[in-house]
């Protein structure tokens, strides 16, 4: 009950910020439209395969979720800068309730963001089917990965620093190591190894498999992402609990 109350407050804080809506919803759609337009300008057979709408749309949905890190880190870092956090810390809320309260409001946002992206992709030629519903659900663990990363950084860093880390660095890392903009196999070597270790390319792989209806191919990648989600969420709770005690 306390968790839901705290989550409700955080939902209001997030949705009453116009920048959140712009970055969360509008920016991924702009990217999708722009890259589709570029791809259409290239003669068929000459453009990169990953820019075909069936590959691009799931990739953009994953990349768009990277902004959730920014939202969750800013939320927690902003709370830390005011005395409001003292009020929360002296309340009966426990560390796990804090982290869940920060996480829950962003889950529906992740679902809405992904659904709108796929809806937009339908107009760009993506075939409609039950696969898209599966693809929306497949994005949930990667949403938790990004939210947890934001909560981790937000617990440790101040408001200015999280803007740089989660707003710039993390979105870039997601872009480079996710196979959204280019195939990491083309770079090969250590770059490809890092991409395989990080969860981003696996998230994109699972999302693309879901859109393609290749359900058997979803889980090897999705297990990888689920593992990261569980570990990072546990790490966020632990770090938050330590920070709470060290206050």
């Amino acid at each position, binding site marked *: 009950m*306390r968790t839901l109350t705290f989550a409700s407050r955080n939902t209001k*804080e997030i949705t009453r910020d116009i920048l959140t809506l712009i970055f969360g919803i509008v920016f991924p759609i702009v990217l999708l439209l722009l890259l589709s337009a570029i791809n259409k300008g290239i003669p068929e057979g000459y453009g990169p395969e990953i820019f075909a709408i069936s590959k691009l749309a799931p990739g953009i949905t994953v990349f768009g979720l990277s902004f959730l890190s920014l939202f969750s880190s800013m939320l927690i870092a902003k709370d830390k800068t*005011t005395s*409001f956090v*003292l*009020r929360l810390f*002296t*309340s*009966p809320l426990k560390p796990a309730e804090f982290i869940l309260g920060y996480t829950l409001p962003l889950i529906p946002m992740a679902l809405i963001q992904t659904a709108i992206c796929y809806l937009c992709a339908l107009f760009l030629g993506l075939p409609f089917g039950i696969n898209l519903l599966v693809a929306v659900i497949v994005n949930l663990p990667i949403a938790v990965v990004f939210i947890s990363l934001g909560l981790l950084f937000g617990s440790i860093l101040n408001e200015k620093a999280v803007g740089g880390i989660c707003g710039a660095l993390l979105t870039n890392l997601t872009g480079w190591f996710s196979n959204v903009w280019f195939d990491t196999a083309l770079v090969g070597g250590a770059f490809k190894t890092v991409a395989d270790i990080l969860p981003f390319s696996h998230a994109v792989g699972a999302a693309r498999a879901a859109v393609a209806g290749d359900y058997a191919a979803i889980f090897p990648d999705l297990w990888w992402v689920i593992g990261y989600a569980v570990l990072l969420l546990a790490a966020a709770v632990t770090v938050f609990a330590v920070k709470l*005690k060290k206050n």
Partner: protein
Amino acid sequence: MEAIKTKALTKKYKETTAVKALDLTVHKGELYALLGVNGAGKSTTIKMLSCLTQPTSGDAELMGHSIVSEASMVKALINVSPQETAVAAKLSVRENLEFIAEIYGSSKKEAKEKAQSMIEKFNMHEIVRSRAAVLSGGWQRRLSIAMALITEPEILFLDEPTLGLDVLARRELWRLIENLKGKITIILTTHYLEEAESLSDRIGIMSRGVLLAEGTAAELKAKAGTDSFEEAFIRITEEAVQ
């Protein structure tokens, strides 16, 4: 009955001892002011008593519950109005009040009723729909205290409640605090000596982590041999430094 009893409460930060073996007793329903110059250890004491930080050694019992081993029980009994703005900026006044009530276990219906009661008690009708971020400093502080009281705490910590307020807003808050006297136990920290003298049942003066003296304002003046409370505070504090 004792609302707060500290036993050799100590907090060390690396080489610095912020609070040294503090033995303090505050009675139920009492308004106890904790005074001291910057770095005296007031804020650290409040932080320990409100379970924000753990003592290095010693303990304190709040309404019979240990801050070390029963922190969650203590947290349910207390509330804090921190020094600076302690409101959720993007929530309205009503939403802020209902949020805090629910966090402390009230149902939605109870929270609504309690919020309405606070709005009436603190005359906040005209700002009830305003977001906290756009309120004046005085209104924010009033809301902050209302948020602390909505949970019906047995012990309330007021940390510099009138800091930065104009004289009218300060007097208005004094009236609100006076109305609470005897109903709940209040620990007040302030740099305004006249505020402590006017509002408190008893006053404790701290310096360098040590409780130098305590008593009513009259007792402290008599002890220091001065007519004014400000002079008494200065003399007690300076004697300790020398």
